[in-house]
């Protein structure tokens, strides 16, 4: 828990070295065979998790809403994609009808994302990009139904600040989706030793093991956030309740060469890559 226990003292979570690293790689965002092929393959799984979780919440609140068309979950929602990179997730969100804003601290990423989105006439209405760190959005009044930040947390300098920023950008009753890598020996072996050193699928230096965050650390953060009296997730031990937060492992299946979304509470599934969802309480209690 050492990472998240740090005080929320710095104002920006952006790490200049990380930004430089991704700027160097930016031309490869849409090369499906290149550096980011694992992310391309992960994207459908991330989208499925987002869509299904939103549907689940909608059904919980309105049982009458029996069988909403399965693509309608995101329609019309204000969605923010923090650390959008080349726009892999942003484009998918926009295609499902979300009014999507993608932000990234790297200017090169944003221009690549803009160029790519311009090819697709369907995205013109619903997708926009902004070159900015997430923190500057706090000064504006706009808040979002859904804030996503996928595979970003392990690259930021000060995770608590970053989480705080993301959380503040969520409307009451809105959703925060994160995905990152757990700080385990397995994660070191797979994401650094295998992916970067042995198979060279990912550039060296993309990941730093010490910056990985365990799912229970994230849960613990939201059990004390924004304060210990009225946290987003009820205090306690073990898994949070389904209506407040959820952790789902993503497991790479080398045989099918694709990612699989592990079932809820699958043992050991969140030892490496995982998705995290938490909901902001509707009324701050």
């Amino acid at each position, binding site marked *: 828990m050492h990472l998240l226990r740090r005080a929320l003292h710095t104002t920006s979570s952006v790490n200049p070295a990380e930004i430089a690293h991704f700027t160097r790689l930016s031309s490869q965002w849409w090369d*499906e065979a290149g550096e980011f092929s694992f992310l*391309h393959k992960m994207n459908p799984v991330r989208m499925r998790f987002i869509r299904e979780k939103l549907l689940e919440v909608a059904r919980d609140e309105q049982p009458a809403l029996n069988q909403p068309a399965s693509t309608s979950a995101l329609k019309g929602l204000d969605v923010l994609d923090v650390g959008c990179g080349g726009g892999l997730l942003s484009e*998918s969100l926009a295609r499902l009808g979300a009014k999507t804003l993608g932000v990234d601290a790297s200017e090169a990423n944003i221009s690549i994302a803009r160029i790519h989105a311009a090819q697709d006439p369907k995205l013109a209405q619903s997708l926009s990009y902004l070159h900015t760190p997430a923190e500057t959005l706090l000064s504006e009044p706009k808040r979002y139904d859904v804030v996503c930040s996928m595979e970003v947390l392990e690259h930021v300098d000060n995770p608590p600040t970053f989480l705080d920023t993301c959380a503040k950008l969520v409307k009451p009753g809105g959703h925060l989706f994160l995905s990152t890598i757990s700080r385990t020996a397995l994660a070191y072996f797979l994401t650094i030793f295998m992916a970067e050193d042995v198979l060279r699928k990912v550039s060296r230096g993309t990941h730093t093991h010490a910056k990985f965050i365990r799912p229970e650390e994230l849960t613990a953060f939201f059990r004390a956030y924004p304060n210990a009296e009225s946290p987003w997730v009820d205090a306690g031990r073990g898994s949070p309740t389904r209506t407040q937060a959820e952790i789902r492992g993503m497991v790479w299946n080398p045989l099918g*060469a*694709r990612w699989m979304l592990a079932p809820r509470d699958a043992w050991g599934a969140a030892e490496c890559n995982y998705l995290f969802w938490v909901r902001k309480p509707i009324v701050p209690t």
Partner: protein
Amino acid sequence: MPLPSSTVYRRAAGHFRRSFRRSISTSPPEEYDVVIVGGGPAGLALASALGSSQLVRESLRVALVEASDLSKVLDWTPAAGTFSNRASSLTNKSQTFLKDIGAWNYVDEERTCPIQDMQVWDGVSDARIDFSASLLGLGSPGQGMARMTENLNLQRVQILDKLKVQTIERPEGSGDWPLVHLDNGGILRSRLLVGADGFNSPVRSFAKISSYGWAYDTQAIVATMFHSPRGAFMGPNTTAFQRFLPTGPIAFLPLSPIASSLVWSTKPPLATALIASGPVVLGSMINAAFRLPDVSMRYLNGIVLDAHASGNPVTASQIQAEIAWRERSHGIDETSAYTSIIDVGKQGIPPADAELLPPLVTSLQPGTVASFPLRFNHTDSYLGEGQGSRTVLVGDAAHTVHPLAGQGLNLGLADVECLSRCIQNALLQGGDVGWWITLTTVKIQLRRFAGSRTALVPYGQERYFENHKIMSVMDKLHKLYSTSFEPVVWARSVGLEVVNELDSVKAALMMQASGKRLEDASPWDIGANVVESLAAATDTARVVGTGVSGMLGAVLQGALKAVGNASSQSKH
């Protein structure tokens, strides 16, 4: 009167300017999500499948481009009792798919015929296997697909028929989206370009997808055959017959009580000579090809070839006299089912072995005799890459198969089913249905398990290997049965006969399909799996091994036919 040269020049320049202006000031391209090139069965089925999905209708703009006039297909009103020579056996899987997409409603089931029994035998040894467990819907695809167009009209797929694709390009600035230029000047910009445009696919050339294959030294003769109805003591005309001759298989596929479809694969010169000799000679030769021993068939083939080469095609009376003589010399008596001189099926109690043979062909439907060369062809990938990205191939554009049992259509429909499923899945995840397909599939092939690169790759992955298995099985079957080399004949025959005696083995082979009900199973999968595992076995006892795969080949041949159509079943 010659025009002054300056006028000519000015006119030419004006013409040049006009045409130049036209070419640069064409209307902006129309945006589509899916452009299907080709209105054959695969293309129409894809359009229909996409149109039948609410999800696709709400989110994708689909167009189908076809050079011919589809309304002719739509207005296809065949005279009762006549049949197109292009019939296909639809597996149950294909039929279920057509039902799911609503296309089967437009199939005139009166014009389809279930196969309830299947007789397959070896032309050299007469080893035989029969399957009666089942049925198989047999219809004319022209018809099924023809009706499908009505369906399409209901489903708001943009049909652009009577329009040719002139060029396909990917200019700078259009991203990686292909532009399809039509011959009326229209331009379609497409997220995903589907090549359903047949063997000489322009889409495939655009995407620079190479293919490999070989022409078999074989020509297939097709025709619609008329015969007398099965007699009172015999079953209905619902049995398919296939005899493997060393020159190629000859198949008899029932269409109605008095009409059946012929697919006779044979050597090209013989096919030419047979067709040139006229329908009566061809009819007699068909009857003989199902009945006479191979040695006599070789002799008769020689006569037909020599007569054709000499410029005097063999006459009907000549060939019938030859056949009668060969029958006598083989001791076939004239009350046997093996005689083609007297139609024994017509009168009284049929001979005991009548059910082993197809009815005698009395005539061929005029205009249905045709032939085409057989090819084995498979593209290196189904998905374009690089300059050809956002391109995907289905049906014959991707693979051409030995038509041992009309499998080409079923493979194409399975492609379409898989592709439309992939498109729908991608839509659910907000995927770009064209982008996800843009994959370096050559590499996928090489690194079958390790390196596929995309979410829609399921299409490339799933279909490529399925199709390849089936195509390989067909190819091996063809080669196995093209020989009269003794040990191979013996082995394949023993294998065939042993399996024929072992009902439990037959049933097991048919039921094995991954725990599905028999009628859901794709027997090709079973057969392909079996043959594949055999291929993985060692080279020891090669002759026996060949025999076993031959037997399995025949078994799966039968198993294919074994798949039935529940609705037809209930009717009969």
